[in-house]
């Protein structure tokens, strides 16, 4: 109000007039001296205007066809930007303040926007498929388990939350797969996101399934290999190999359960049969 003391002394009339009634048109669109204020009329008009915009925003998404559609994003964003700047300019009075305050606020706003957009681009957009992202960044390493025995493997980083890493289901299965079960394993069922099978899959989160076809026959007394594998797919929490013999230090039961729970509903009985058959074949 008194940020420009010379003003008050030199032009008392103009200052006074502006206070009494800046005029609705001049208040919203005109150039007005620093420190002008609106009254019930100006702020009331703005409140009604903002209320109408909110109503319009709501009406835009009332038709069911438009709910969640890409078409409404631009109009909704534009309307909210209008509301945003109306509140900032008039309710927060920034139109009538020293320009330094604009600069400070806009600087923060732009930085905030840059942070938000960068994060979204970094984690949400520049990631054609999570699988491609991982495979581009896989690290080759050699590991000597014991004297004379040599293991080579690839560590595949998981750049995103488990479940988001499910690769897109290949249409008609991958040409390279030797059986429908293997196609499912590396494709639609996404088992390969977490499990390793030499020459087929390089997942590092779940236990390796190398030789599971023969190993599973002896895991639980009284279970056939097929029973064991089927149960491990359908009810992964009944028996977890890693916990029993302490092989897997990083075993995370909740992670496994939630991941498997996300995958299972998408699989038909035939899919499960094909997977079991494929895993049994791994000797």
């Amino acid at each position: 109000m008194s940020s420009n003391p010379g003003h008050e002394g030199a032009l008392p009339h103009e200052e006074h007039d502006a206070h009494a009634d800046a005029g609705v048109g001049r208040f919203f669109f005109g150039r007005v001296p620093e420190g002008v204020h609106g009254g019930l009329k100006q702020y009331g008009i703005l409140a009604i205007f903002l209320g109408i915009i909110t109503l319009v925003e709501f009406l835009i998404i009332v038709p069911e066809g438009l709910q969640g559609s890409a078409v409404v994003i631009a109009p909704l964003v534009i309307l909210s930007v209008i509301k945003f700047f109306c509140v900032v300019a008039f309710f927060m009075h920034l139109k009538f303040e020293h320009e330094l305050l604009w600069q400070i606020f806009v600087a923060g706003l732009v930085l905030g926007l840059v942070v938000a957009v960068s994060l979204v681009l970094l984690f949400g957009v520049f990631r054609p498929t999570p699988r491609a992202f991982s495979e581009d960044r896989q690290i080759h390493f050699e590991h000597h388990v014991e004297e004379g025995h040599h293991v080579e493997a690839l560590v595949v980083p998981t750049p995103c939350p488990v479940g988001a890493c499910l690769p897109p289901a290949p249409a008609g299965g991958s040409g390279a797969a030797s059986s429908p079960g293997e196609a499912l394993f590396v494709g639609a069922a996404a088992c390969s996101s977490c499990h390793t099978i030499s020459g087929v899959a390089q997942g590092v989160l779940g236990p390796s399934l190398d030789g599971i076809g023969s190993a599973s026959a002896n895991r639980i007394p009284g279970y056939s290999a097929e029973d064991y594998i089927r149960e491990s797919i359908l009810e992964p929490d009944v028996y977890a190999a890693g916990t029993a013999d302490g092989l897997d230090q990083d075993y995370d039961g909740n992670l496994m359960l939630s991941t498997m729970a996300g995958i299972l509903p998408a699989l038909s009985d035939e899919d499960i049969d094909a997977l079991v058959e494929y895993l049994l074949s791994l000797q």
Partner: protein
Amino acid sequence: MAHVDTTHAPPEHEAAAHPPAHEEETTTGINHRKLLMWVFLGSDCLFFGSLIATYMVYRGQSIVGPYPADIIDVPITTVSTFVLLMSSFAMVMAVAAARNGNQKRLVQWLVFTIILGAGFIGFQVYEFNLFRVEGLRYETNLFSSTFFTLTGFHGAHVTLGLFWLVCLTIIAARNPAGRPSGLDVDIAGLYWHFVDIVWIVIFTLLYLIGGFDAGPDAGHAAMQGWQWITGIFT
């Protein structure tokens, strides 16, 4: 220094007659408290920007329900958005009353602002509780944790603002001699309006656009929109 003070300093009673806000001469001509509030609001943009970005990054990444479409109630939130918007209107009228030195109107508008703000918090408590009852807890999925973090911090801002406004109202009602000053109310108003503009963004992104996301495929439309935009430039 000593003579300057004795010759030019106004007598004690004259200095006391001026409210402190008018005495303050700063190099920018802007009151320091007001400048500081704007700096804080500028930095708060970064805080909410990051939380909003986190929500957008994890949008459509949940692998278990409930998903937004199962649980978000857009009509009710439209009403609560309107309530918060009107509280901003009441706040700006309180600021105008404080500037005009109308203590009675100031108290009235402040009380009106508090009622509307508390109404908004009431809607949020109702919503959070409904989500909890329907099985959406903080740790349920990526949607719930990012949603509760973002809207929870916003709700905390509103609650803090309410506390501030209650204090101002008590001061205004008890002490009619020029306190709180126009500046005191103005600064509280800036904070309050900022909370409103943050909600404008949240309402659009989380409710109007993101509120219909169903299942793990959600956010696909946004992706298509994005690809459409980038397609124009390539």
